[in-house]
């Protein structure tokens, strides 16, 4: 084997290794799935109320809670849930198309639904601390930013879920009829 062939094979090996590393994309928090999220901490009410991700809906507690549940049961892994406390801890696992390749990420949140005098407020707290010791620096900031964007999207979905029935009455009436309501 001459030197150039050897160097070529070395380069090929290096390139293959990089491809394998690239293909090995995974959820960072997969170990939490294995332990059924038992180590996910309970967010305090104060930290939830301090979250910038919040929205007040002109609807009562029952309707708001049901709208939140309708969205989350379809999208998330519910970790803990208590209607009495208005609290839900959940993970969204979503796919992202990056460079023509599908990748996955976990989006962990704590949520609080709180009654107000005439309306209801939903607070959403990204549990970015779970990524501590997993990633750092610039990547950590990207995670936090992605968590906020995903949280905003969820709030939009809660609102659509809450208002769509009234906004497009003819569709919800037809759906209710077909479901035997």
């Amino acid at each position, binding site marked *: 084997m001459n030197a150039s062939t050897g160097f070529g094979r070395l380069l090929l090996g290096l390139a293959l*290794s990089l491809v*394998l590393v690239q293909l090995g994309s995974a959820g960072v928090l997969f170990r939490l*799935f294995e332990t059924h999220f038992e180590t996910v901490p309970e967010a305090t009410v104060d930290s939830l109320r301090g979250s910038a991700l919040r929205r007040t809906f002109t609807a009562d507690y029952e309707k708001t809670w049901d709208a939140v549940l309708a969205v989350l049961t379809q999208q998330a892994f519910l970790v803990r849930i208590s209607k009495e406390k208005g609290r839900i801890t959940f993970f969204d696992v979503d796919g992202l198309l990056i460079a023509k390749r599908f990748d996955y990420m976990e989006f962990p949140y704590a949520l609080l639904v709180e009654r107000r005098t005439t309306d209801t407020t939903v607070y959403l707290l990204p549990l970015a601390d779970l990524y501590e010791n997993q990633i750092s620096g610039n990547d950590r900031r990207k995670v936090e930013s992605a968590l906020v964007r995903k949280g905003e999207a969820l709030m939009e979905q809660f609102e659509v879920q809450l208002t769509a029935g009234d906004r497009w009455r003819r569709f919800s009436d037809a759906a209710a009829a077909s479901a035997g309501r």
Partner: protein
Amino acid sequence: MSLSCWPRCSSVALAMATIAVAAVLGQSAGPQGEVARAADPCGSTVVYAAATDAVFDAVLAYVKTIEDTLEANRKTLQIKWFKPKTEADKASGVIVHRFVIRRGAGSAVSPASYEVVNRTFWVRPAGSGRSRMTTTIRAYGWWDAPKPMRPGSHEQVYNWSLWGCEAPELKLAAAVAAGAGGAVP
């Protein structure tokens, strides 16, 4: 660095070394190669002629039989172990049944894998003593070692979702019908 890069790009050299060691030892490098997720393939809603409490209790009882079915089919489904977990909130009418499945390598479409199947039952009043139950599924899985997806890999996780969705629906309808009322056509 893209979002997809977090688990590994910060230490490419270390990852390469891990792969090399894993190759030498003939073992996996840890759960890294996530492959598929099936969201709500059935998402069914059924209305039962029974009170919400009765349906809720029937579902809770039924969840145990899902675990028994998994146990009984452990060999066929190539299950090494599985960890089930149930969360319930009666005030909401929500039952979450989740299991993490560890499967061995060897099937035509699957290397060794972890699969997480999360089923949510949401039971709520539908008026006139009826109850409406919505079932949703979120499944998520990954292979042990970083490697390209094999043909059929997506179907593997998708099948879990269907398996966890359709058969229990029918059996649950029968269980509720025997106890307090049947499914409303």
